[in-house]
């Protein structure tokens, strides 16, 4: 009994210590918080990394906004966000940001008689649907994109995310780029004032509601559409070509994005040019302090990220993410060396 009490006390002490990320005892574990989009790949990477190096990762997927708040408060070593921070905000809080991984967002539909990948949509039409201007599936605008399909006169049931989400941010950012109406009436953010439709919690909620509602339309991360065998639509991209959602078409969006000419890697990869490009791609950025209080922890975190860029490619692919292209990784590492410093020396010592 006494032994049990002692071990319980040790467990409680350890739990308490793990919340105090700044305590020296826990310097061995990395701590991060934020985006739910990136969580699956972080978890898988961390698992492998711990086996290789003995260093674990404690990542709380509490949402991008929460991650930003926590990294500013210095309760975690790094934050992860699906919506890049503005230059001014980064400057104000002494943070740097860089993309960690990319993915794709796909429109999903529930139309009797229409198989996955048969329907073609474009940004303008989706914007009109989400504005409530197009209300039935046999609308002329949808027919014009799908001359060969027989479309039912079913009412369109619009489904969107109810929780604030990076997926919503990228989806609405795309609609803003394509539709002046959307830009003036709704705009883009992690949560917006939706003119029509129902909100469902999380990508799983959106997927499920669309699945249940005849005539439903929604948008989810690619992995959800693929794993739940949902009826996704093809898209007309900026080059005027019809593309399928796939890791290749997301990768094309990533490689066509101009990170080199950007400040703070603030490139949102929706509506990128290129014939093979999927128009609604998304990135997740990592946020970390420029002048860290705990240089050792930050150094370990950067080591882990460098490892993930190089050795985590297959894992990312298996989970339907797109890795950051090597050319961009070189830019990122250069920015680490230039910006993240302790005692005047770069924290990142790797290659």
């Amino acid at each position, binding site marked *: 009994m006494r032994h049990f009490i002692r071990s319980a006390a040790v467990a409680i002490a350890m739990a308490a210590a793990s919340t105090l990320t700044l305590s020296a005892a826990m310097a061995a574990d990395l701590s991060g918080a934020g985006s739910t989009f990136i969580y699956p790949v972080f978890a898988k990477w961390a698992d492998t990394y711990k086996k290789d190096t003995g260093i674990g990762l404690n990542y709380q997927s509490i949402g991008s906004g929460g991650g930003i708040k926590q990294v500013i408060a210095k309760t975690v070593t790094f934050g992860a966000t699906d919506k890049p921070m503005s230059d001014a905000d980064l400057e104000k809080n002494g943070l740097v940001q860089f993309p960690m991984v990319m993915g794709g967002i796909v429109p999903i539909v529930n139309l009797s008689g229409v198989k996955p990948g048969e329907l073609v949509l474009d940004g303008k039409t989706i914007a009109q649907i989400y504005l409530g201007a197009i209300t039935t599936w046999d609308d002329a605008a949808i027919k014009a994109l799908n001359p060969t399909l027989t479309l039912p006169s079913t009412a369109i049931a619009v489904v969107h995310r109810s929780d*604030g989400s990076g997926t919503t941010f990228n989806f609405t950012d795309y609609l803003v780029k394509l539709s002046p109406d959307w830009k003036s009436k709704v705009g883009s953010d*992690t949560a917006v004032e939706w003119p029509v439709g129902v909100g469902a919690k999380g990508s799983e909620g959106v997927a499920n509601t669309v699945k249940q509602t005849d005539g439903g339309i929604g948008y989810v991360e690619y992995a959800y559409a693929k794993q739940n065998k949902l009826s996704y639509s093809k898209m007309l991209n900026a080059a005027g070509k019809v593309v399928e959602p796939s890791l290749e078409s997301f990768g094309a969006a990533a490689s066509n994005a101009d990170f080199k000419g950007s400040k703070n890697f603030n490139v949102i990869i929706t509506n990128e040019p290129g014939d093979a490009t999927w128009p609604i791609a998304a990135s997740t950025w990592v946020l970390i302090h420029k002048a860290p209080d705990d240089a050792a922890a930050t150094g370990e975190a950067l080591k882990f990220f460098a490892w993930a860029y190089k050795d985590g490619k297959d894992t990312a692919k298996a989970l339907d993410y797109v890795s950051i292209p090597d050319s961009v990784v070189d830019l990122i590492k250069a920015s680490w060396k230039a910006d993240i410093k302790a005692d005047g020396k770069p924290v990142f010592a790797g290659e």
Partner: protein
Amino acid sequence: MSAAQEALPAIRGSRDATVKRFALTDAVFHGMTRAAAILVLVLLGGVAISLFAGSWQALSTFGFSFLTTESWNPVTEKFGALAPIYGTIVTSAIAILIAVPLGIGIAIFLTELCPRPLRRPIGMAVELLAGIPSIIYGIWGLFVLAPFLQTTVQPFIIGVFHGIPGLNSLFAGPPYGIGLLTSSLILAIMVLPFITSITKDVFDTVPPVLKESAYGIGCTTWEVTRRVVIPYTRIGIMGGVMLGLGRALGETMAVTFVIGNAHRISTSLFAPATTISATIANEFTEAVGDLYTSSLVALGLILFVITFLILAIARYMLMRIDARTGA
């Protein structure tokens, strides 16, 4: 001087010490219980103050219009709380309308009519309902109840009331399956065990002699329940209902799953809506701007005030009833 007289002062001394000790333990006990009671007040005050401080920015920016506007727009940072307030009150009210008659019915059956061997299992089953986590209710509502309502119940009701003015706008389509009524149903199931078990417990406190007298002068079970048991336990039942209402007002997870989370007020019970706690749960993690966060805290303050008001009104009503009946 007998020996006994000599011993008196000593006895008196020890008696005084004992009395002092008793007085001391009493004082300590008194102080501790009072501290515990005051702690509740301090905590409540602390919650109120921190909510007020957190929501100050939103309240000073929007003023009174925060309570009267429907717009909830994170992009332009224009926030109004009318839609979530409406959703919170309507869903809770409908849930209580459904759960109170059911709960009192179950309690009457268990205490007056149920055969003895069945009493415990049914009572346990009802109380187990309270042990189901709200997330489970939410998932069950989303995956089981909502599709059922969507494909069978809602189209039927929409069809029935289609041509009747007033009712056709109350039950207007399209049938999403999720919406105001669905979350009211889930809430009703969730608050049922609270109302039932408290009602059952207070029914058990009715002195048997009262019931026996009523039966003795020829009352039926219905009359005994209606004229003796319910009047005697009125306050207890009200307490159970209030507890249920408090639970319904604040319920978050289950409602978030099935209400449709749309910041709109519509007359239809099938339309998607939102509640205060669902809005906070949905948006707090991603709310980056100060004004946005502050508006969400202001919603929390409003919920706090609504709950407080409802409890105060209930207490006041009970006082009125007591004063009238002279109980």
